[in-house]
């Protein structure tokens, strides 16, 4: 069997070391070694997006990343989204808008939405639907998810403007 490797990453902001075999995916290591079971396994072939995490800020399917490739990278999972002050605006919007039913796809949707809003804070409905195309939901029919992202975008802008105002940026 191939020798295990020591991998050092920044995981949800903290330096983290783990031991893995080359054949293990990042998804397996997150769930089975690091007990971060918020990231879900759906199709395991890159179609459903349930396992989406951010690697160096970019959304990826963690089922299609080898854990050894995370060496030196910054990885963010759903466990790293809420801050000490509470839920992220996206999480709040999903809850308040009931943008989930069974919930399996939700962590992946939230990670992709994080990446979308970081890059495009005011997306159109079209842009949201297209950006989230790599995340499948078999329950909701997507409308509530899209509306939750729109709500989060609005909250984010309000919050940003407020903090800018408080800091006197504008």
């Amino acid at each position, binding site marked *: 069997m191939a020798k295990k490797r020591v991998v050092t990453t920044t995981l949800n902001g903290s330096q983290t070391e783990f031991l893995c075999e080359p054949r293990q995916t990042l998804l397996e290591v997150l769930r089975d070694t690091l007990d971060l079971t918020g990231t879900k396994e759906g199709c395991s*072939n890159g179609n459903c997006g349930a396992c989406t995490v951010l690697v160096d800020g970019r959304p990826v*399917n963690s089922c*299609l990343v080898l854990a050894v490739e995370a060496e030196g990278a910054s990885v963010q999972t759903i466990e790293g989204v809420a801050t000490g002050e509470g839920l992220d605006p996206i999480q709040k919007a999903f809850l308040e808008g009931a943008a989930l039913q069974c919930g399996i796809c939700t962590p992946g949707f939230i990670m992709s939405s994080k990446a979308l809003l970081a890059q495009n804070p005011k997306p159109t409905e079209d842009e949201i*639907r297209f950006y989230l*195309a*790599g995340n499948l939901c078999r329950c909701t029919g997507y409308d509530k998810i899209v509306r939750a992202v729109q709500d989060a975008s609005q909250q984010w802008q309000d919050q940003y403007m407020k903090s800018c105002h408080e800091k006197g940026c504008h």
Partner: protein
Amino acid sequence: MRDFEYEAPTTLSAAMELAAKHNGAARFMAGGTDLIDQVRVGRLSPDVIIDVKKIAELKALQHDASGLRLGAAVPCCEIYGHCGIVSDYSALADSCRIIGGVQIQSRGSVGGNLCNSGPAADSTPSLIVLGAVAVIAGPKGTRTVPVEDFCTGPGKNVLQPGEILVELKFPARVANSGSHYRRFIPRNEMDIAVVGIGASVVLNDAKDRFISARIALGAVAATPLFAKAASDGLTGQPVNDESIAAAAAAARAIATPIDDMRGTKEFRLHVTGVLVERVLKAAIARAKGEHVDCNVGH
């Protein structure tokens, strides 16, 4: 997943030494979006995976007056995020925006898409119409192959054991030129092309006549096809519906699609004609300096 070793060399020569040492039992990996799945399902069974993302030549992205050099491992998101590629190699950016979802685009590369050699690969027709040449390094030295000659069958290509695709080289964009790629899929996004068409055109200064054109077809034969007769037939022709329709008919004539779950042969032939016309018109509009809104999914 089956057991394998992982190596991430930082030089091309080290990567080739590793490949030689493992004599056919090693696979190169760029984004891994095809490879990891193929290993998982047992279609491929490498003893070693050689990650090529740490090799500078394979991550190069250089755009200047002499053209474009695109390292084989550059992911799609960097390609459509590059202003020079969006403006001068538009068909390539069009392709990269619709390969998989954003998660796939974060990792998957055009070089990997080419080496995977799927008949429906979305980036290959764009490489062909933009005149890209594959630069291949191997034990016997470096050679170049025009992309239209790269694929030899479904999943098959000209790479010999130990050879590695280093980069794709494109000529500089000439004046009054434009390109586009578009596919037909039953969904709005995240699907495999039923038919995919790329086209590039160069117009005269008056922009009413073709100086040259290149048309390429995907998903309608065992490999992506360069439609040479259809392309050459446009040389010197006026830009009008008749010349465009004639090119579409000539392109249709070389398509040999199969019936499968994504579409029948008859349907694919029809769509080939329709798309060649639409894609040529979009490439012409771009050559005329018009902004073509290529919102994917529309």
